[in-house]
């Protein structure tokens, strides 16, 4: 610059130059020097030169903004997208890797979203809650005094109500049918905010004991049974023979509980029944609507504190001490605690799949970056800053991850819908998987995370490429130095370790599940059918009438030629239905709690024909006989588990037991039977059982088991016909094959174990493709070295062995690390899922061996390729 240029202008340019991005700075200075020079040469006294020079500031700012703004980055992205379409193989492989890695967590998230996060579709559904009492981590119902205290004394709730559900028979018009009825307290529908579709919902007057009994029906039940007849409103239908006037219809989606078919008001009329004045009578399900602005978590803490105070008071019964309370969103409350634990386990599994996929993609990106060393260093030479190079490469991995995420999300969504639809047990109704905003957002966030995880190492690595390296000839060789290949090897080792851990954890979980699915029920289930009935108290008042129905029903069934045997019980085995009662027992003369210990067992009332129908016999003592009647000695049969628990090593037959809190009558143990799968889960094969003769404890609820002599499905209509002959107004509920009932109960378990298997296999595929990629890459990179070895006389076998040895050493390190991770994982798993076994060394060893073999197989093709390297060609390529 000549002296004609004023200092102020020169300084301005110097300062503005600092603003200009590095790649453009020299050219910019040159341009402005020329411009100033020109301007100042125009006249001897250049006026306004300073003002002119000020323009350099906005010019510099413009260039800087250009680099920083989305436009600069978007330009890079466009470039990346174009570059990616030019290597479709790499692009497709990476997108698929991301699709697997992101699809799996997206699937689990959408399940969790449906089950735990989404509020119900009522008005302001996110303010609706359930209130529970809790003890030792279990949720319980709430007693009336608790309800009063929790809802009116805290001021947290806008409104609240409670309900109880049960079954009632409807017999009007068509066949008798058992429906799910819910008895509700005041303000029930008002709290829920459920509007009637037709008619009206309950008002205060409907709760008056002297009023006409009213009924609200669920829309789908109304459509199915009454063909959506609007004229039904105001008409009477009978529940268990008692007339109820239908006053309204509500939509299934906005009603509660989810499976209710009809609602009827509790007729307290402002009076609290004596039984419900006791705090220990935890028998009501409480729903409430929190005040606007109150957070559910805060409400839960306040109610819990109140419960602690109440249950710490001196006047609280010993058995009630230690109760707390919990407020929970109404939507999430549908999901059982075990399922929440299941989500936790699945979450860990899919995160591992995500990690494996990211590590794999990282390896792919790394090898791509090393092939692009020339391009990258060219950009660096042209002045692209390191930050910008890293951003560009991260942008590329983001493009790939988002594309993969979108693919994965769609596949996961369609797959989940299919799986849920085919799953029995109404899973699809509970889990309405949707592609809504929160799922999309989650998938997007996971994709970005994956892009960062997978792309950061290759991008940082590429950003470090020096310009000097690039200028050297054979730039393609530069980035593949020892550092890079070590990095890739480390990535594959991590991948193998994670895969082994995931496979082992999946194996353990499946082992646990298999135990539940495939466990021997302890009796022959193939020809068994079951159903339940409930006799209405109005028509079956006395135990004589109940006994008469029972006798007639079984006689009718047994007379049929297609039926080999029939029996009635209170609860079906294999968790297939009926009345579940758990009672606490002590020996005659033993101290009662709190001083003495009780033994819990499931209480089952059975006929003498129970054993013959199931095909089991007591292993000691005698079965029940028809001689065990209401007026003879009270007797009981226990299973081995109960005998073992109550009287380890000593005979229990002949001793007398009683259930302390319930029946409280002494019963003599007359027999011991083998354990059977009673609650449907083999992990609970050893449920302690106490069986008592039905004749000594008659009940209006019956669960009937029928053993067919031919095809069991064929006698289903026969059973309906025979039972209608005894009493046509009694509905047969859950008439099905016992093994179907069992299978339906296990559906969630099967679903989980299937998902686990798939995630393990996905990780395996990813890891093996990673090994394959690494070995192919390593062979092609070392073409010259191998060529020299062959030229110097190395045999085909030794070349192959060299490659395989390298792969095997990776597998060995990977398995070692994987074993450690798996050990930690199995500990966590055992805590989350009871019934999951500890990791055994043998199992771990076998899995590691299998993985090593798979690794060898994956490196076989690269190894063979190595043996085919032509030494002359390889040497000439230099």
């Amino acid at each position, binding site marked *: 610059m000549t002296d004609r240029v004023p200092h102020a202008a020169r300084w301005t340019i110097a300062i503005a130059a600092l603003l200009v991005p590095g790649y453009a700075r020299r050219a910019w200075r040159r341009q402005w020097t020329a411009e100033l020079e*020109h301007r100042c040469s125009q006249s001897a006294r250049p006026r306004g030169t300073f003002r002119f020079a000020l323009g350099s500031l906005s*010019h510099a*700012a*413009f260039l800087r903004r250009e680099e920083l703004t989305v436009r600069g980055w978007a330009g890079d992205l466009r470039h990346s997208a174009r570059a990616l379409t030019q290597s479709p193989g790499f692009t497709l492989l990476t997108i698929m890797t991301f699709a697997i890695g992101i699809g799996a967590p997206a699937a689990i998230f959408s399940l969790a979203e449906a089950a735990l996060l989404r509020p119900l579709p009522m008005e302001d559904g996110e303010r609706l809650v359930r209130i529970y009492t809790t003890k030792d981590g279990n949720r319980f119902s709430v007693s009336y005094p608790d309800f009063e205290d929790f809802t009116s004394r805290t001021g947290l709730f806008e409104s609240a109500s409670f309900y109880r559900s049960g079954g009632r028979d409807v017999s009007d018009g068509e066949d008798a049918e058992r429906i799910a009825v819910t008895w509700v307290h005041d303000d029930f529908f008002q709290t829920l905010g459920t509007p009637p579709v037709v008619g009206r919902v309950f008002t205060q007057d409907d709760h008056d004991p002297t009023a006409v009994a009213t009924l609200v029906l669920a829309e789908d039940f109304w459509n199915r049974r009454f063909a959506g007849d609007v004229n039904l409103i105001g008409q009477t239908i009978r529940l268990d023979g008692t007339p109820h006037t239908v006053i309204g219809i509500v939509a299934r989606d906005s009603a509660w509980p989810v499976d209710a078919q009809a609602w009827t008001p509790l007729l307290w009329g402002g009076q609290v029944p004596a039984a419900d004045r006791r705090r220990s009578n935890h028998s009501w399900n409480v729903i409430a609507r929190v005040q606007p602005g109150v957070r559910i978590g805060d409400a839960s803490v306040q109610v819990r504190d109140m419960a602690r105070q109440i249950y710490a008071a001196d006047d609280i019964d010993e058995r009630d001490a230690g109760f707390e309370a919990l407020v929970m969103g109404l939507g999430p409350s549908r999901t059982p605690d075990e399922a929440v634990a299941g989500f936790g386990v699945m979450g860990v599994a899919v995160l591992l799949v995500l990690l494996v996929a990211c590590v794999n993609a990282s390896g792919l990106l790394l090898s791509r970056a090393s092939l692009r060393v020339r391009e990258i260093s060219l950009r660096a030479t042209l002045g692209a800053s390191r930050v910008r190079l890293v951003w560009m490469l991260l942008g590329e991995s983001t493009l790939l991850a988002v594309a993969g995420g979108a693919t994965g999300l769609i596949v996961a969504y369609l797959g989940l819908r299919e799986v849920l639809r085919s799953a029995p047990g109404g899973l699809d109704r509970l889990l309405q998987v949707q592609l809504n905003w929160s799922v999309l957002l989650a998938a997007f966030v996971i994709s970005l995370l994956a892009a960062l995880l997978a792309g950061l190492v290759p991008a940082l690595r590429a950003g470090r490429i020096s310009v000097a390296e690039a200028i050297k000839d054979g730039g393609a060789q530069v980035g593949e130095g020892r550092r890079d290949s070590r990095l890739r090897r480390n990535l594959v080792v991590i991948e193998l370790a994670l895969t082994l851990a995931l496979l082992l954890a999946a194996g353990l979980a499946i082992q646990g599940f298999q135990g539940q699915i495939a466990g021997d029920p302890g009796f022959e289930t193939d020809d068994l059918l079951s159903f339940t009935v409930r006799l209405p108290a109005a028509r079956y008042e006395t135990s004589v009438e109940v006994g008469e129905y029972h006798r007639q029903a079984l006689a009718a069934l047994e007379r049929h030629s297609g039926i080999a045997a029939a029996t009635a019980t209170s609860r079906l085995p294999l968790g297939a239905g009926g009345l579940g009662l758990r009672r606490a027992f002590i020996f005659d003369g033993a101290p009662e709690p709190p001083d003495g210990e009780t033994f819990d067992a499931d209480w089952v009332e059975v006929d003498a024909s129970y054993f013959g129908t199931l095909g089991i016999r007591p292993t000691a003592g005698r079965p029940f006989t028809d001689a065990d009647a209401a007026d003879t000695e009270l007797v009981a049969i226990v299973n081995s588990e109960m005998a073992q628990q109550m009287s380890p090593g000593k005979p229990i037959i002949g001793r007398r037991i009683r259930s302390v809190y319930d029946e409280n009558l002494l019963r003599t143990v007359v027999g011991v039977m083998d354990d059977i799968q009673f609650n449907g889960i083999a992990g609970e094969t050893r449920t302690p059982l106490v069986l008592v003769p039905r004749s000594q404890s008659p009940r209006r609820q019956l669960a009937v088991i029928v053993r067919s002599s031919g095809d069991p499905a064929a006698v289903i209509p026969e059973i309906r016909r025979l039972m209608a002959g005894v009493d046509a107004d009694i509905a047969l509920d859950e008439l099905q094959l016992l093994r179907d009932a069992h299978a339906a109960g296990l559906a969630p378990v099967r679903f989980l174990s299937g998902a686990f298997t798939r995630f393990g296999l996905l990780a395996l595929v990813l890891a093996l493709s990673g090994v394959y990629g690494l070995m192919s890459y390593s062979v092609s990179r070392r073409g010259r070295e191998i060529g020299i070895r062959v030229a110097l006389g190395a045999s085909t076998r030794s070349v192959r062995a060299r490659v395989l040895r390298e792969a095997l050493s990776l597998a060995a390190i990977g398995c070692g690390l994987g074993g450690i991770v798996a050990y930690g994982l199995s500990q966590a798993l055992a805590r989350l899922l009871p019934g999951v076994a500890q990791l055994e060394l043998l199992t771990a060893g076998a899995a590691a061996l299998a993985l090593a073999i798979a690794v060898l197989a994956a490196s076989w093709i690269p190894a063979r390729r190595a043996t085919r390297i032509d030494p002359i060609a390889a040497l000439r390529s230099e």
Partner: protein
Amino acid sequence: MAPKNLPIGTVMVLHALARGHQYGFDVLEQTGLTSGTVYPALERLESVGLARSRWEDAEVAHQAKRPSRRYFEITSAGKEELIRGLERYKALAPLTIDGVAHPQGVDRT
């Protein structure tokens, strides 16, 4: 990517380039715009492909005893964009405010 609706300053710069003014300072003198407008505008026109720049041959510059200059010229896309721009601003021309005649067009030469 052709930008929509170039601002009037940019259209003026493009117009100057179209008439053969190649040099930043030259454009500035012709349009009467400030340096803070002209240089970013030239940069922007180049980045969106409406103009291109080249450096003056070093030999020539050396002989003239000055640093080499950066010369700009309009591209064919730039010409199309210029016509569109002029059409747009021509719509402003026929207005008179309080009897004061509006200068015809944007070109003051």
